[in-house]
């Protein structure tokens, strides 16, 4: 029977050709995968996005710190307002006394 293999090379057996072909196909698949990944530029874009987010993190932490301080200051203002409210109720008596004095 004649050989059914195509393009037999001189001095190479069928097994050798087959193993070469399998190796080249594997390499092609691997190269294709790498090219697909490289062409999508996903690695660059994602690493750039992660870097930008790390840069922004400092600003975010600072903003959170400022907000917490504002909340504490607001609480202090509330305490002061309650103290003022308590003391301002005496002013009516004071005013009556002064009006009486200045008559």
């Amino acid at each position, binding site marked *: 029977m004649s050989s059914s293999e195509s393009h037999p090379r001189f001095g190479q057996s069928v097994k050798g050709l087959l193993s070469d072909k399998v190796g080249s196909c594997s390499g092609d698949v691997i190269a294709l995968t790498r090219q697909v*990944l490289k062409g999508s530029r996903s690695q660059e874009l994602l690493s750039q996005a992660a870097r930008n987010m790390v840069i922004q993190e400092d600003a975010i932490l600072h903003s959170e710190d400022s907000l917490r301080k504002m909340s504490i200051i607001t609480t202090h203002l509330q305490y002061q307002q309650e103290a003022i409210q308590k003391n301002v109720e005496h002013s009516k008596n004071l005013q009556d006394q002064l009006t009486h004095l200045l008559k």
Partner: protein
Amino acid sequence: MAATGDDAAAMDSISRAPTTHSAALNPAGTSSGQGECPVDATEAAACAPKRPHTNSDGGVETAEEAVEPAEPDINELCTDMFEKMAIFLQGELTGTCEDYRLLENMNKLTSLKYMEMKDISINISRNLQDLNNKYASLQPYLDQINQIEEQVSALEQAAYKLDAYSKKLEARFKKLEKR
């Protein structure tokens, strides 16, 4: 006998099944030329003669298709090769997936942080609105305080005038007393 053996061998190369079937049906019909190959159908396939003898066709070396069954370890090696290739390709793609997961986690944490900040901001806004309302309700009292401050200033002026008048009176009294 030899011709019969050659013809049977030729039949083998064309199709194996009819040969084994015929061999199974006619065990007695096998000649001595086929004494090498047993009658059993399963063994006929196992001991089919190897055919990879080369033919020279116009100076080009060719080979024939191997008809013997593959060695048992070849299948294992092939399976192992494809499994490892699959693992490698999966590893190549997993890198990008992990980058996406990292970004997803960072975004989730940042969104949690922003939600906390939103809650704090809402609290601050509500508290400041209450404070503004309370300070607005204090306004009449603050006006009273302003009036009190004016009245106290007027009282102070009156006290200075009284003090000056009383000093004048004291000086006149002392003058009259000396006379």
